[in-house]
């Protein structure tokens, strides 16, 4: 065991602990994904490799209407959520960055509140809101979108503000100095510089929306507003087949691809350090 104790070498104990942790966190995911390709109906006993739960004629992701519906609704919510929270979040970030007067500090803290509030509390609160205060909206897709935007917005604001802070005011000042009026300072300089952060923020909002369960579940109305995560939860205790693993795998792949793209885009434009900080946010 002398390689573990060499005081001049790298801290190998740390390497060992890290490796163990990575194995521990990845193994369940790998197992779940593996059983999506099981040839039999069991989610615990390996019976050979097959794509039947993805593309088979019955009970597969491609042909089961319930799974199809859930996947479509999940993606629909994610797309609307991104479309709403990105422009709104960017505007808020810009506004908050400029606003350095009284009250800006408390608004900053408020922006982080949705990120630290336990989701179940938020879910219950939003449920009551839509049932009692805004019964005309009621439960369903609209409520789900509003509920998800409530916290995906915070991600967008935090990411875009981070980039704004690191950009600093001087590019805008340079633009103004060269004769650009305020809207040109924004369009010709600030937005292009923010583009990587905006893309990354949109991708994270997308991923967070796909992964969300609690709020989406509380604000759903009927079967047509069921998402993948809700379906997984509901059928896990019923008659589960590897089709559930298959649809979870699809959701996982979409999330991973989106986040990887975001990471790559961001690193390409904003440099490694900030990208690493961003990666850390991808809870």
């Amino acid at each position, binding site marked *: 065991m002398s390689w573990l104790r060499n005081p001049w070498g790298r801290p190998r104990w740390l390497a060992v602990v890290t490796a163990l942790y990575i194995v521990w966190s990845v193994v369940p995911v790998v197992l779940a994904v593996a059983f999506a390709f099981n040839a039999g109906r069991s989610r615990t006993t390996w019976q050979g490799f097959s794509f039947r739960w993805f593309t088979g004629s019955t009970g597969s992701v491609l042909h089961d209407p319930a799974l199809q519906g859930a996947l479509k609704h999940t993606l629909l919510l994610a797309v609307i959520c991104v479309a709403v929270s990105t422009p709104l979040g960017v505007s808020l970030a810009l506004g908050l960055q400029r606003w350095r007067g009284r009250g800006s500090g408390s608004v900053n803290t408020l922006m982080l509140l949705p990120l630290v509030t336990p989701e179940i509390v938020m879910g219950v609160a939003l449920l009551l809101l839509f049932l009692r205060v805004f019964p005309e909206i009621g439960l369903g897709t609209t409520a789900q979108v509003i509920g998800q935007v409530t916290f995906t917005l915070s991600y967008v604001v935090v990411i875009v503000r981070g980039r704004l802070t690191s950009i600093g005011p001087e590019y805008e000042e*340079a633009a*103004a100095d060269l004769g650009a009026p305020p809207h040109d300072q924004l369009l010709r300089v600030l937005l292009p510089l923010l583009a990587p952060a905006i893309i990354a923020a949109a991708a994270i909002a997308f991923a967070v929306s796909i992964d969300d369960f609690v709020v989406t579940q509380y604000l759903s109305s009927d079967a047509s507003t069921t998402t993948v995560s809700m379906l997984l939860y509901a059928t896990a205790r019923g008659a589960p087949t590897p089709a559930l693993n298959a649809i979870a795998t699809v959701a996982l792949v979409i999330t991973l691809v989106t986040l990887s793209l975001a990471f790559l885009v961001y690193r390409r434009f904003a440099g490694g350090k900030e990208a690493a900080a961003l990666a850390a946010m991808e809870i």
Partner: protein
Amino acid sequence: MEGEIRLEELTKAFDGVVAVDGIDLHMPPGEFFTMLGPSGCGKTTTLRMIAGFERPTSGRILLDGSDVARVPPHRRNVNTVFQSYALFPHLDVAGNVAFGLKYRKLTKEEQTRRVGEALELVNLAGFAGRKAAQLSGGQQQRVALARALVLRPRVLLLDEPLGALDARLRKNLQVELKALQNELGITFVFVTHDQEEALTMSDRIAVMNEGSVEQAGVPREVYEEPRTLFVADFLGVSNLLAAEAMGPDGDACSVRVGDRVFRAQQGATGARGDVKVMIRPERIAIEPHATGGDNRLPGMVERSVFLGGAHEVHVRVLGGELLKATVANDGKRLPFALEQGEAVTVHLPPDGLRVLTPGLPRAEAGEAAESGPA
């Protein structure tokens, strides 16, 4: 001639902290004007007010006679070269230089021509297609310069533009900047904390400290005739000795330093009481031990450094003060060794000794800034 700036009672306070304290300055058209001072003296804030990035708390900024203090930066006919250059990273060199031309009524051809001219002016003709990140510090600096000059501003503001460059490049750019300013005849307002830079490049220097102008004038005057202790200490190397002024003695002032009485012909020769006397290292003469005469002090060499063109000699004089002297290396053999422990006589000629009263009243400092030779 265009490009004249007058600052009148200009004040800027940030949350009650005064950064610029009612300064009056005149920057004549076509001159290389430098605001010199340590960090926090208000020089950059003053520059940013002229550019329009900071709104003055009070006072006026007259650009060719009209007050621009409330005009937003994009409508002021002044341009800035930023300390960090602030080149737009998403645009190439040509895109950066052309940025401001969009707001001038110019044809596409005219724009392209002006961009080409500007890049040629700063010797970057072949770099139009490069991104800012692909350029060296010195090249980025030139692009920043071209980007501002292409708009033909009446005044060019430069915020420590050489600060981020290495010493050698800095020297070259100093010369180039000065040549460029001569060629274009545009007023340059330059901010720096580097006194050497200020002395070599400027037509006129304003030395600032704690939000006020201590002294403004041509480099020689500010260096040779500092009016305040701060200016004497900040520009060049000064020997400052605590002394007691005993009143005028002919054209000079009698000052008592320790147990000796000297004649000092420069500065506040009418002063009485506690003062400082100042002398530049190059004005001190070192003579063999026990040389007789007025304005002389015995001392002992404490350290001597050969600098090539000169020796820098530190002499501990009677009374305990340490004086720095420069002895020019003129090829002659010195009649004494400049070695540690060597006893010498230090001669402080009356025309090199300047009497400085501690602190100049505010009003007087303002007047001094105003009444620099035209």
